[in-house]
């Protein structure tokens, strides 16, 4: 079975060639661009400027990178906490004994996951949040309240994006936690109940230790996708031609804007490299954690 030879390399070659061309080479090239002043005026013959772009991103507070980074961390933490708590509650309730329609509910709850993401986001933007004919403001109007300009202010736009992200991401989390809960042996709970354990004792002593290793990979993946979330913030607030005025850039939309809107390629590349390094740091850290979880 475990013969040595060149065959494994042969099998891997096609994958590695594509990854090399579309992933690795562009990353290295981004690293090179980050050391130059490449922009619209220096498209063909960019000059080498050393670490100037990096210095600007990290030390010039006005550049907006540090605040975007802090905002992204806040965004990730808030979303992950809400997602885990709400998904856990819904998954537990779905597993209530005697709930006959739970299959039907589960199918409907998967719906936002099945919809194309950008379609849902645009439907939220135009159908729900729109100032004049959005459903939310129509409902407020029916209650005799003034409409809210959901996507214009920083705070309300941030909360609106969080709401949409929850709507989009909860189905996956519910499915994962639901699957994990079903893998827990029911007899643990029965004997715990006999011994007089309360709800929180059972949660802490049985559910969390048993569910944790099962959901850990999915949670880590979700942390990454939340951190890297582009579509929601971009489509709701930053889309070219229909910017709402809210400045809630996360690092990804920030970098995108620097490259494709203000055409500051060198600077944008430097920011990309910084983000990449942060993500590597984080994945090394979580990888260790995950492996321990499996022991």
């Amino acid at each position: 079975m475990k013969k040595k030879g060149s065959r494994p390399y042969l099998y891997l070659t096609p994958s590695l060639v594509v990854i090399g061309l579309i992933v690795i080479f562009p990353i290295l090239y981004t690293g090179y661009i980050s050391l130059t002043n490449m922009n619209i005026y220096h498209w063909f013959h960019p000059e080498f400027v050393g670490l100037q772009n990096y210095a600007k991103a990290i030390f010039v507070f006005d550049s907006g990178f540090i605040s975007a980074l802090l905002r992204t961390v806040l965004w990730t933490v808030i979303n992950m906490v809400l997602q885990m708590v709400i998904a856990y509650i819904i998954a537990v309730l779905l597993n209530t004994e005697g709930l006959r329609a739970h299959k039907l509910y589960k199918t409907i709850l998967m719906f936002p996951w099945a919809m194309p993401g950008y379609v849902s986001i645009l439907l939220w933007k135009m159908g729900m949040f729109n100032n004049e004919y959005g459903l939310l403001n129509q409902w407020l109007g029916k209650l005799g309240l003034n409409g809210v300009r959901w996507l214009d202010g920083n705070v309300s736009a941030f909360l609106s994006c969080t709401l949409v992200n929850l709507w989009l991401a909860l189905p996956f989390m519910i499915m994962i936690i639901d699957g994990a809960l079903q893998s827990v042996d029911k007899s643990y709970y029965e004997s715990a109940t006999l011994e007089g354990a309360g709800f929180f004792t059972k949660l802490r002593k049985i559910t969390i230790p048993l569910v944790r290793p099962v959901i850990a990979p999915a949670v880590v993946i979700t942390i990454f996708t939340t951190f890297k979330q582009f579509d929601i913030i971009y489509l709701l607030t930053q889309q070219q031609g229909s910017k709402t005025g809210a400045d809630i850039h996360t690092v990804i939309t920030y970098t995108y804007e620097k490259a494709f809107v203000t055409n500051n390629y060198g600077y944008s590349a430097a920011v990309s490299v910084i983000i990449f390094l942060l993500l590597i740091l984080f994945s090394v850290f979580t990888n260790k954690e995950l492996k321990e979880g499996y022991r």
Partner: protein
Amino acid sequence: MKCRKRIGLFFLNIFFILICLICLVPVLYALGISLNSHNDLLSSNFSLIPKDLTLENYRCVLFEKPFFLWLKNSLILSVFTVLISILVAVPGAYALSRKRFHGRKTILNLLVLLNAFPAILSMFAVYRILKPLGLVNSFTGLILIYIGTMAIFGLWNMKGYFDTIPEEIEEAGEMDGAGDFQLIWKIILPLARPSIIVTAVMILIYVWNEYIFAVTFITSSSKYTLAAGLYALQATDYTRNWPVFSAASLLVSIPVLIIFFCIQRYMTSGLTAGGVKE
């Protein structure tokens, strides 16, 4: 006691019905608007259920916009991307799962790190690379990008599932003199069906829904995919076209919805076995 339980279940059902409604409301609203004969959008007495049923908006999408052209482009792109991705990733994942060779650990760790890099951040670099090769505004270039972006996911996801298949089954096959190709074809593929189906569908859905690479790398609207076309449709004059846009977005979503719910039973096993574990 029994009575209390009934009341509890009653409220639980109400709770879930409410949650399900929240889940569906943006889509139901779009459905209502798309079926409504237009212009009472701005009036205050608009309701979710249309008063004047019309298919006019759907007709407009299907016949006044290049819908079928975009559909054809989407189909071409997704079919080629999925086929090539699976062809490329299955042997690779098999090697990573079953063979022990020099550099295996390094490759696995490198893949995890590379996966951390958001594809969108290297978009500009990819553009500078593909432009001189003449691959901008071409399907080949876009397919290449999609395959490369999804390759790591494919490798990891299938490798993780292959790991769960006991090796003894193959050893028996190997005794009978079967080569790697036969082992993959006759033993691994049938056993790994859930993971291959889920991987293929995930890639398909990714291509179907991807708009930002599509609008950046494709410059002529006759080569747009459905996602790119829809994006362009709303980016230009969406206020006026909101009912049309709703109709279009629902039409675009239907194939994905059907595929998704068809493979839902494979989802948990096909997606979580891969994970990031080793």
